Structures are given as structure tokens and as C-alpha cells.
């Protein structure tokens, strides 16, 4: 293998695939990055067996070949180089990768590319396209609601339902549920439901940050893996096997009280209250009071801590229905409020021990359900 490429391209490529490099692993080669010539480009790949990322960068290939080298080492070396041309030369006998850039030179001993875990090919099944912006927002508003605790693996994933020209993403951790509907740029022929690890989607969101073209999504017929293709980047993710809870029945169909409030005010009041709630599990209490003839309605956000004291904040609200009291884990509120793009949110409640529902005002594609905490009033 013999080629040359630009330092900044190589550096960026290593950064892209770096997130898929295994951190703690029983398979040492997954600490390595695979370098392989691919026609007139250099392909970089890394995998932690749950997800694999490949990235192509422009190169002048003189001799084809492939090798794997320790990812961190290579990436640290490359990032310290000046932004000039990097000459890469593999000596096949010793499996040593020679790197030359300006007046710097390094030799890194590698492991045969044949030993690198094969990255699954994802073809057949369904194939579709989604606009980057829509997908980024959907993932941003859904993925955080997945469980981080692993005792119920399906809940660590995001349920993705492809149906006609609609994609529905849903995540739940047993205490909250987030559901987002977005259009597919290319309809699917067959309704398909898969569970994608939330961690993979978070990585995908990071990779999409500087992308503009629509994302291609392919799910293989066995529903074992999904492929997300971006410009010069491919992410292949294992899918979580199992069946996702039937969440539509968890969304309350009616409410007794509805308060429309400013997202920014609600977020600020909740954050402040959370400071006072931090010695416990972060209980934030809400009292929703309807307005009178002359006075506006309001939502009182409060928290108390034995050690620090307590905090009470009022927010103006448009209240429909009766007075309501409900307590939530403050983190669950700030999590959702900080990802909403709309100016106002509607909070719908039935009683202190039934789930509360948050819906952004002005768009009907997102719904967030939170189970309250049970407290003495």
C-alpha cells in the first residue's frame, strides 16, 4: 500500500471513525482503525461491534493495500502534524506503516487487515431517504428518553417505524416516552419496525452536523443491521432484537387541565427549582392555577431541600380546566424543555398520579409523556 493524502482530510476522517473505536474491549483489534485503499480514495473504518463507521477521503493511490493500526496512536500523531501532504507507505513484510509529513516521520506497526472484524453489508430489505435537518431534530427530541440502564435492552434503543412516507421514532425508559413523526423523502414499500441503539443515533446526529444531503437509510431483510449513508461516511448499526412496548396506549387521550406556557420561562423556573431539589431525587412540584376574569392563569414551580431551603417561581400561563397539582423529576422536565424549538408548550394533566403530557404548540409531530413522582402535598 502506498498513497498520499492531505493531513487535514486524514485528521478529519480519523475523527469521524474514532467514535466507533472500542474503548474497553476483549477483542484488541477493535482498538485499531482499518486503512484500505478504495479506488482513488482511502477508506478508514472502525468498529466496536455494535456500530461501525467508515469514512472515505481523497488520496493519490499508487499501490493498493490495507492494514490496521492502533487508532488513538495514529490519530494523535496525525493531529499533531502541520497541514501538508502525508505520505503513507506500508511495508507488507513487517506490517509497519510508514508516515511522512513535512519533516516528520513515524513508523507504526500494525495488524493484518484480514483480522479486522468484517463490517456487515446491508442490502435488500427497505431503503429510504430522510432530510438531514428533520432527522437531526427527531433524534435530538427522542433519543435522550431511552433507558441508560441495561436491564431491559429494548428500552436502550429507539423504536423506528417506517410506514409509507412517515418515520415514527419513539423512546421510553419506563418513566417517560417521547414520540416524533417525520416525513420520509422516499416512501417505503413495506411497513417496517426496528429498534436502533440510542447510542448509535447519538453518533449519527454528531456525524450529520455538517451534512446537507439527505441521509440514506437501509435495513436488511433480517432486520439485523441498519445502514445510514451520508456523504463520504457510512454508519452500520446492529439493531436491538425484541419487541418494543406498544406505546400508543400509554399516551393519555384526555386531560383535566391544560396549561400553555413559554418554554423558556418554564425551563428557567425548572432549572432554578432543580438546584434546590438536588439533595433528593430532584422533585419539582407544579401547581397549575386557572386565571380569573382579570388575572392570567399561572403555573407555580417549586422545590425544597432540607439543607438549602426552598424555591418558588411563578410563570404566566393560559390555563384550561381545573386547578392541578403534579410533581415531576426535574431532570425529566429540563431534558424535554431544552430540546424544544417552539416558543410555547402545552402541559396536559389528569391527576397527580397519572402521566403528564407535553406538546409543543404549533407542531403536532411531537409528544412527550412523563410519569409523575408521588409526593405529599
Amino acid at each position, binding site marked *: 500500500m502506498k498513497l498520499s493524502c492531505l493531513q487535514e482530510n486524514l485528521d478529519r476522517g480519523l475523527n469521524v471513525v474514532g467514535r466507533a473505536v472500542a474503548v474497553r474491549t476483549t477483542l484488541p483489534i477493535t482498538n485499531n482503525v482499518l486503512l484500505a485503499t478504495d479506488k482513488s480514495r482511502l477508506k478508514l473504518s472502525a468498529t466496536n461491534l455494535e456500530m461501525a463507521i467508515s469514512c472515505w477521503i481523497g488520496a493519490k493511490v499508487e499501490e493498493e493495500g490495507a492494514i490496521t493500526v492502533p487508532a488513538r496512536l495514529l490519530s494523535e500523531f496525525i493531529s499533531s502534524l502541520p497541514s501538508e501532504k502525508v505520505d503513507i507507505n506500508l511495508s507488507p513484510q513487517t506490517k509497519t506503516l510508514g508516515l511522512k509529513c513535512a519533516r516528520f516521520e513515524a513508523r507504526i506497526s500494525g495488524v493484518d487487515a484480514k483480522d479486522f472484524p468484517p463490517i456487515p453489508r446491508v442490502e435488500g430489505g427497505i431503503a429510504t431517504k430522510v432530510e438531514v435537518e428533520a432527522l437531526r431534530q427527531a433524534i435530538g427530541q427522542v433519543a435522550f428518553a431511552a433507558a441508560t440502564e441495561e436491564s431491559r435492552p429494548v428500552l436502550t434503543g429507539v423504536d423506528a417505524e417506517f410506514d409509507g412516507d412517515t418515520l415514527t421514532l419513539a423512546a421510553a425508559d419506563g418513566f417517560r416516552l417521547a414520540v416524533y413523526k417525520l416525513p420520509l423523502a422516499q416512501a417505503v414499500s413495506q411497513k417496517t419496525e426496528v429498534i436502533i441503539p440510542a447510542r448509535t443515533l447519538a453518533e449519527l446526529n454528531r456525524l450529520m452536523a455538517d451534512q446537507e444531503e439527505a441521509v440514506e437509510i437501509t435495513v436488511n431483510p433480517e432486520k439485523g443491521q441498519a445502514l445510514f449513508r451520508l456523504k463520504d461516511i457510512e454508519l452500520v448499526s446492529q439493531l436491538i432484537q425484541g419487541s418494543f412496548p406498544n406505546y400508543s396506549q400509554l399516551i393519555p387521550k384526555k386531560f383535566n387541565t391544560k396549561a400553555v406556557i413559554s418554554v423558556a420561562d418554564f425551563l428557567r423556573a425548572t432549572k432554578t427549582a432543580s438546584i434546590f431539589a438536588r439533595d433528593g*431525587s430532584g422533585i419539582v412540584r407544579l401547581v397549575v392555577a386557572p386565571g380569573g376574569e382579570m388575572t392570567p392563569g399561572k403555573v407555580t414551580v417549586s422545590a425544597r431541600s432540607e439543607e438549602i431551603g426552598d424555591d418558588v417561581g411563578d410563570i404566566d400561563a393560559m390555563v384550561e380546566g381545573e386547578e392541578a397539582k403534579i410533581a415531576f423529576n426535574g431532570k425529566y422536565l429540563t431534558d424535554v424543555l431544552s430540546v424544544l424549538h417552539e416558543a410555547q408548550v402545552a402541559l396536559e394533566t389528569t391527576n397527580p398520579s397519572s402521566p403528564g403530557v407535553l406538546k409543543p404548540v404549533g407542531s403536532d409531530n411531537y409528544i412527550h409523556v412523563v*410519569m409523575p413522582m408521588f409526593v405529599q402535598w
Partner: protein
Amino acid sequence: MPIKALAPQVVARIAAGEVVERPASVVKELVENSLDAGATQISVEVGGGGVSLIKVTDNGAGIPSEEVELAFERYATSKIGDLDDLESISSLGFRGEALSSITAVAQVDMTTCADGEKVATHLGLEDGAIASRSTKGRSQGTTVTVLNLFRKIPARLKFLKSIATENSHIANVVSQYALAFPEVKFSLSLDGRVALRTPGSGKLLDSVAEVYGAEIAGNMIELKGEATIPRVTGMVGLPRVSRSGWGYLSFFINRRWVNSRMLARAVEEAYHGLLMVGRHPVAVIDILLPAQDVDVNIHPTKSEVKFANERAVFSAVYRTVRQALAGQTPVPHVEAANKPVFSSVVRESASPTYVGAGADLSFPPLTSAAALPVLRVLGQLDNSYIIAEGPDGLYLIDQHAAHERVLFERIERQRAQREIEVQGLLEPMPLEVSPRQEAELWSHYQELAEFGFAIEPFGGKTFLVRAVPAIVHDRDWAGMLRELLDSLSEGDKSNWAETVIITMACHSAVRAGQALTDSEMRELVRQLEQAATPHTCPHGRPTMIHLSYGQLKKDFGRT
């Protein structure tokens, strides 16, 4: 063999066997007699493990010349008169049995001089009968000499252990009474060697220092017994001077030394969560209560008692000790003169005997109630320990143990105030349990509600969980519940509530190996500073190791 009445000598010897089990029993009876006689100085000399010689000399009231013979008669006593007196015994002796029992199994000499008498009476007894009587010169008080114990009872002699063992039993008896009567000057010599000498200053700490040494004495805290009935006074050791055996627990009822598993349990309970498994506290406890509330006449050696209201005594002891431990106002520190090096700090902390060694190492000295100084976090070691700087040196804090302590106290407090934080489940979760767990869950699922678990039977081995304690909501609470049910079904149920709290705290605490941000570490240390008992985790392991500047100086040879 035809039935016939036993000869009086045989009867006496059988009866004596009950009172006089071993040489230490003789010492106990004689010392009790001296104390009953109001002595302020008691000296005990022992030879050959007590078999060849026991000599107890006191400066008590003495026995008037004309009553000396009576003292040796069975059931002759000056201490109680009628049946009513038996109901309210305030002296240590009351049966009039001890001296006669001893004379049945040994050769006894007594020299005694009562108040106002010019000469002392000397009486010599052999085989339970008076062999000689004469007068002698001595000041007021009594000397009893017991020679050749059990010589006539080879079976009993054979049953005795080594001289060293018998000596240690004797030393224990004298030590116990030295602890119970700090105002009495005790001395004990074993084969001519002084084994114990107390100053008789009236201060319990002085007796403790003589009996247990400076290290323990330096770590004793006083019990502030409220003037209640029963009233509990004495001293207990800080958790860091725990012992591997039960031998450091002394109980006195109205200053009578007694053995009581119930009292031992009360103390052990009070230390719960402060000591590691297998470690036991040091305690010297006197319980004062009206004589009619306690029956001391249930065992031949008077070492066991029965309380009219056992629960009241138990809870008084538990409460008093617990309070003292929570307050932790230590008595002035007695410097232990040893010279540890840093490597021993590490070794000490790894072994279960970390509590034993030099004053500088184990826990930081407790100076006031919530006694953690303000700490400045320096960093994290091995993703498991927080390194912090205090005004008096370096602190290494075990992040998991420290967090467990913080959470344990939080859960305990929330439960006491019925304010456990409960997180509802969006959808009730079925919990499948094993048959053994099922039995446990059936008997406890309602009580688990107190801790925030809303669980209801759902038929068969399935239960429905509707809500969980907020503290564990983002953990594997189902796994935690199963583990809890297992430990409840194996373990001791008397303390199940604590088992629940410990399990919850353990499961929600940060793990070792978890990287923490600076602000997380600062927050944890801040919360630990506010804990009531910051130095140990609920399992009794230490949460921190302290390395003082003095220690650092010493180890770097800067002094």
C-alpha cells in the same frame, strides 16, 4: 445402692460445686464480699492459677469477733434479713453461701478486724470445719486466704485449664470490678507479678486506661445517661477501636457484674452500620434501676439476671449508646506511642484490622459532632477514590462507600419523615420472582411501600410494580429487588428495614471505576461532610483514609 441421705460434707461439696466452678469464682466471691464491706482498697494475690493460693485483703468494715464463725455457716448472712429484703437486694452478696462453699472445697484462713476492735480475729478452716482460732494484730479490714483449692476434688482439678487460662479468668474478674468501682483502689498480682493496679480516683476513664490501655482509653466516649429509669451510664469505644471478640463488653446492673446476651445485643445494635462484620465494640456500661425491677437470684454464681421489663432496659441501652455515638464528643486524646509508616497506612486500610493501629492513621480524629473538616477536592484516583486536602492533611475518599453513606442517611431520614421520593412507572412492570423470593415478597410487599415500591400481586409468581423509589429509578431496580428478597430470605429478619435501606443505598451509589467530574466530586464531598456518621459506609467499611501532615513529615524524615 439403697437410697440414703448424703453425709453433710458431701452435700456441702456438691452445693459448693455450683458456686465455685473455678478459681476465678472464688476471687469473684471474695472481691464482692470486700466491696459489700465498703472497702476502698482491695488487693488480690494469686499463686498457681489460684489453685495454690488466693489471698484477698481489704480495708472494709471487718467482722466483729463474735460473728466470725457465723460467716462461714451456710445461709448465714448479714446482708438480708427477711423475704422482703430478697425483693430489693442492694448488696452484691445475699445468700450467705459463698464462704461456706469455699471452705467445702479448700483450706481457708480469715483474719478480720471490725471497727473499734483492738485485735483481729484469726480463724483457720479445713474440710469445712474450724481448725484453729486465735487473735492477731492488723488494722480494720479483712484478709481471706484460700489454699489448695479443689485438692480434695480431683475431678474438678482435672477439669481446670492451664495456669495461664485460670489466671486470665481471675484477671478478668478483678478487671470487671475495677471498671464497676472506679473509686476503689484495686491491685492484682499473679505469681508475684503486678497484673493490674487502679488508682481508685473515682474516674471511670482511669480504670479503663489501666484495664484496656491508653489506646482504647483515648477513644472512649462517655454515655450521657439521662436521669431515667433505668439509667444507663458508662463509656463506649469509638468504632475505630472495635475488637474481634465479645470480650470487651462489660455490663453491670446496679454495679453487679453480669453476663447478658440481651444487653450485648442492645449495644451491638447501637453500633449497627458503624462496625465491619465480625468486629465488636468496647463498652463499659452500668445500668441503674430499682432493685425490685431486677431479679439477681436466678443463677448460682449470680452472673445472670432477669429484668421485670426487658424491653425498657434494651431500648434504654440502645438509645443511650446510639446517642453517644451520634454525638461523638471524644474524651481527651491519649497518645498511643507507636510509629507507623506510610506503607502501613495502605496495609492497614486493606485489612480488616484497620481500626487498631496508631492514632494518626485510621480515621481522622473526631473533634465535634459532624466532624469532617472542610475538604478541597484535588482529583480522582483510579476512577475510584477522591483525593482531597483538609486543614490537617490528605484524605483519600472511597467514592462508592462515601456515596453509600450519604444515600443511606438520606433514605433513612426520608423514611422516618415518610417522605421517600417515589417515581411512578409509565406502565406497570411485571416482576417475576423465584419461589423463595415469592414467599418473601408476599410477606413484605406492603411494607416495601414505605420505601417507595408500589407492588401488588398479579397471580402466581408474578407481581406488578407500579412505582419505585426515585433514588433507584434509573438503576436496575428489578435486579435490586430480587437481590433484596434473597438476602431477606437468607438473613436475619429482625433488621429487614435496614437491609432494605442498605441495599437501596448500595445500588444507587456511584460505582468504583466511574469517572467523576470535579463538580460531582465536590458535591459528593459536600454531602459527606454533612453526614451524621461520615467515616464509615453502612456496611461498616471506612469511607476515607487520612494521612496527616505530621505523618507525612515523619515519613519523609523531615522531623
